């Protein structure tokens, strides 16, 4: 009697301990690739990770070759890529965030209406479409009619990719607000739009902001859709109707040119650091500005 009473908890204890170790092992395993990547990028990239990276445009293949022959560090940086990424993202944000938030508000308010369900499902579906497919579609929709590659086309592609994430995070953070806030606003005679704009959206600001940041960091490194929309540029461009480059595109170009290959690592390291910073920022905002 006593024995069985004791053995049952011990067995269970062991089981939960084994389970715990398994979980720990697996989570460590998943960390390994991440650390390997970061280590590799630092090891190979730190030499080129200098001031020039931020202030000079990417070198031509010829410049890089000459430097290689004379044994110097490869001159130049990725300023044109940084500027392009900034421009493309800025326009993508302008396109995606208001539309995504508006849709998210609709979904949160109309929860089970047939149209809301349809939109929700389509938005989930959109998230699953391969980015190159989105790129090709935008090529047909924007590049062809405008008769040329442009930053705007790239922004459109990235905006389409950001939309589902913005929609979801808006919907989820609005749903977390108590109904009493909306009731209180309406009870004061506020119109529906005033209540949404002045009370509901500000109250879920941290959720919206976090969602937007994560969406940005998610599309920041996208390459495939940009290949077919912005083309690339050797100089800094701030005109949204002109071809542009981006950090991710430059990495792709460096990869295709043996003379430039050593720039891959420093630019990848930079891109990774930016994405990491955005993610950490998103996390800290989510924590700090949480209501109550």
């Amino acid at each position: 009697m006593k024995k069985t009473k004791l053995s049952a908890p011990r067995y269970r204890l062991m089981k939960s301990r084994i389970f715990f170790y398994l979980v720990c092992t697996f989570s460590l395993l998943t960390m390994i690739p991440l650390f390997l990547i970061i280590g590799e990028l630092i090891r190979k990239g730190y030499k080129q990770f200098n001031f020039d990276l931020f202030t000079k445009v990417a070198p031509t293949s010829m410049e890089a070759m000459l430097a290689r022959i004379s044994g110097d560090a490869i001159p130049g940086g990725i300023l044109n890529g940084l500027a392009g990424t900034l421009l493309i993202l800025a326009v993508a944000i302008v396109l995606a965030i208001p539309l995504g938030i508006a849709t998210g508000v609709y979904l949160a308010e109309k929860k089970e209406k047939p149209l809301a369900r349809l939109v929700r499902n389509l938005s989930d579906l959109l998230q699953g479409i391969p980015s190159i497919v989105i790129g090709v579609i935008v090529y047909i929709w924007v590049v062809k009619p405008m008769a040329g590659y442009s930053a705007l086309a790239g922004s459109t592609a990235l905006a389409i990719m950001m939309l589902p994430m913005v929609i979801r995070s808006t919907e989820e953070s609005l749903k977390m607000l108590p109904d009493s806030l909306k009731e209180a606003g309406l009870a004061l005679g506020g119109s529906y739009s005033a209540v949404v704009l002045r009370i509901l959206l500000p109250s879920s600001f941290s959720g919206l902001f976090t969602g937007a940041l994560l969406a940005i960091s998610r599309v920041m490194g996208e390459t495939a859709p940009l290949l077919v929309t912005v083309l690339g540029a050797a100089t800094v461009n701030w005109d949204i109707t002109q071809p542009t480059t981006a950090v991710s595109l430059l990495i792709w170009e460096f990869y295709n040119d043996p003379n430039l290959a050593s720039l891959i690592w420093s630019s990848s390291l930079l891109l990774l650091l930016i994405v990491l910073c955005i993610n950490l920022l998103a996390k800290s905002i989510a924590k700090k500005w949480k209501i109550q």
Partner: protein
Amino acid sequence: MENTINTGYILELKEVSVSYTPGKYAVDKVNARIAPNTVTAIMGPSGCGKSTLLHAINRLHELYPGISTTGEILLKGENIFRMNPMKVRRLAGMVFQRPNPFPTMSISGNVLAGYKLNNISLNKKEKGLIVERSLRSVNLWDEVKDVLNKKGTFLSGGQQQRLCIARALALKPELLLMDEPTSALDPISTSRIEDLILELKKEYTIIIVTHNMSQAARISDNAMFMYLGKLVEYGTTRQMFTKPENKRTEDYLTGSFG
């Protein structure tokens, strides 16, 4: 508006029925008249339609899709269902069961929220006056006058509820509707709000839903007893508590309710 003079009542409910689902009445043919500067308590078991009736008075019940309302509610002689709902809600302020200050707004921002939501612009002086007047009228001014720019959510539960009352009063409503305003509060905060209600009666007409019978006895002039959506009994609180006319009211009040 001239009806006010004729009847002397600020609020008249005529055959008011509300149903969330067709054929099922949450409020069933309620008739009542309420005189100005009185406190009316609405009592009755859970689910008898108290909140629904209260919400109907400022048309907040219209938020629920599929709800249908019949009958008339006259506020100062004017049928609220023919008025702009936003105007009705400004005239009939609402205080909820749980304090719900707007979490992104400061204390003064909360008091002024009604103006902001109605796109009424005020200059700095007007804002200051409204904030002070409203907070004074709920006896909160002395406690918060130095922290007006702090978030309303930093206050204690009882203070938050008084802030919510101030927020409703800032718009100078005719009626103050309160749905179990003290049920989430401690006894001390509760008694402060009860005292406050007695003070506010001088300027406003108050309708309060309460589960607490001694509270109703302490603060109300008149009392309604509802059961299954029907207004079973309505009269002075004193009469209701001493010799109720209806058997159900008596059972409820004496606690022998099934």
